[in-house]
């Protein structure tokens, strides 16, 4: 029996998935192999510990749940309280009957009055939209106002309906265009503030976000980018590097080894993969990552901070770990940091402008689940 087969047999045995014969064979094996028996017993004890934890519903649970249910139900409009479905059905039937009988009544008691056909004006209004063209309320108001006052509208003749998408599509197109502008602006700013080599690829973070379709996050990102842009503009003149004083973050495959001393041991460390491109002198890649997963290391970490460090975080190490990443050029970068997770890893995502900085004066601290998954920087 291979290791995998034994492992499978252990769990099948614990879960009662072995046949009677297989179970007897396995139990005989347990008697022969004390190590295997200890493993099985350890699993059993862990499972029992889990089952034996007593959990009681908190007092008032049902009243609170009921109140939440009631609050979640949409309120019936007042008229619906007095109009039942039966009454609605009767009204509909009466209407239908009227519609069927009315032509016969009209035919019997006289022809309908002659209706004069509508004649369109011979010269169409310059502001009138072409047939089939959708007009937004704002456009309609614009087109009506000059006609009332008897002044030329000044509006150009709108293009043919076929050459332009419907208003809804136009809005989407405009939005896309705006985001394209935003992205190109972002790239330009990156070029201005943080020069990179011509072959340098755009950070994967951008692709990742675009792939997720997180348009909801765009305004927030935009604000953070604006902040960073303003800050970096202010720092356009490269400043001398501020060497971390007592606490230093772990430097991955170092691009600027001279700027970082070896990191102290602070909990688990997860080194991010090195960047493939070289950075200009004086620019530091934000690639340092330290993961702290126990209260003692966290205490030591806090003690090592400078007196004026700003940090608002109280991690619950029962369920959380702390990822310390940096350096970050400014406060706004931390506001833009996100983390995401897959089944087998946690990825800290940096905003594009925080990929590099000209200062090593700080970093960001992020609480992540304490579930043992490896952590990496995902830009």
């Amino acid at each position, binding site marked *: 029996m291979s290791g995998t087969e034994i*492992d499978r047999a252990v*769990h099948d045995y614990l*879960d009662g998935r072995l046949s009677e014969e297989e179970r007897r064979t396995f139990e005989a094996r347990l008697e022969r192999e004390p190590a295997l028996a200890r493993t099985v017993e350890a*699993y059993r*004890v862990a499972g029992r*510990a*889990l*089952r*034996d*934890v007593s*959990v009681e519903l*908190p007092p008032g649970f*049902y009243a*609170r*749940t009921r109140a*939440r*249910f009631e609050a*979640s139900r949409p309120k019936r409009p007042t008229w619906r309280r007095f109009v039942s479905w039966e009454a609605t059905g009767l009204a509909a039937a009466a209407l239908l009957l009227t519609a069927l009988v009315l032509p016969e009544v009209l035919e019997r008691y006289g022809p309908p009055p002659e209706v004069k056909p509508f004649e369109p004006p011979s010269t169409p209004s310059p502001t009138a939209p072409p047939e089939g063209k959708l007009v937004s309320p704002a456009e309609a108001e614009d087109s009506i106002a000059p006609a009332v006052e008897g002044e030329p509208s000044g509006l150009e003749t709108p293009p043919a309906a076929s050459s332009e998408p419907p208003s809804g599509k136009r809005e989407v197109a405009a939005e896309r265009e705006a985001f394209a502008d935003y992205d190109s602006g972002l790239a330009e700013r990156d070029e201005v503030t943080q020069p990179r080599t011509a072959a340098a690829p755009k950070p994967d973070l951008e692709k990742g976000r675009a792939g997720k379709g997180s348009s909801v*996050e765009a305004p927030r990102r935009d604000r953070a980018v604006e902040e960073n842009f303003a800050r970096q503009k202010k720092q356009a003149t490269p400043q001398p590097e*501020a*060497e*971390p*004083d007592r*606490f*230093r*973050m772990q430097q991955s495959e170092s691009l600027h080894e001279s700027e970082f001393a070896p990191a102290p041991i602070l909990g688990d460390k997860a080194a991010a993969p090195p960047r493939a491109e070289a950075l200009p002198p004086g620019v530091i890649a934000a690639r340092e990552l330290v993961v702290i997963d126990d*209260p003692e290391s966290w*205490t030591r970490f*806090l003690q090592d901070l400078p007196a004026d*460090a*700003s*940090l*608002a975080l*109280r991690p619950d190490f*029962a*369920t959380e770990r702390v990822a310390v990443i*940096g350096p970050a050029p*400014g*406060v706004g*970068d*931390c*506001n833009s*940091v*996100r*983390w*995401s*997770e897959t089944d087998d890893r946690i990825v800290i995502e940096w905003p594009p402008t925080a990929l590099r900085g000209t*200062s*090593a*004066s*700080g970093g*960001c*601290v*992020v609480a*992540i*689940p*304490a*579930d*043992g*998954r490896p952590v990496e920087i995902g830009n």
Partner: protein
Amino acid sequence: MRRAREPLERAGVHSPEVDRTAGEAADLVDRIRRGDADAFEELAREAAPRLYRLAVHLTGRAEEAEDLVQETLVRALPALKRFEGRAKLSTYLVRALGNQWKNRLRSRSRSKIVGWLKVGGTDGDDDSMAIDPVDPAPSAHERMEGEDRAVRVRKAVARLRPDRRLVLLLREVEERSYEEIAEMTEVPIGTVRSRLARAREDLRRLLGDES
């Protein structure tokens, strides 16, 4: 295989079981969909104890567990199309709770940002941020709790990876079969098997480390 209810009753989880005819069940579901709070509470009382127990282990926190169960019941029960027996209802609600929990994890992963850490040097932009005093030492209450075995188990479970945690709890606490777990978590049985094996090993190690 052991009967599912025995260990749960031993652990203080009592779900009232009400025998209904098909007509009564259909009426109950219909009333819930129309917003009848009595009908909602009737079914919630049947499902909540087990859901809450699972939620406490999943989230590791009583307050969050209550919120999770409430949200699950409030969303899932009115969306119930028909009552196909208690087992089906239980499967449906556990799956809803698991999905709700995973959504929360994802949402938290997008929004739980912490702060700026200044390490040496100077940064003029940092002045606006107040220094928040941090007290990492556990409170007296936490120290008392720390002695409790139940809390240690809960903490160990909370350190398991979410996907493994859910499978382990469905097997060990809910005592679901592999097939039921596969249905609830929407993964193949082979994945259930491997996640369960790894979760057991992780839990054994964590509880061993704690003791």
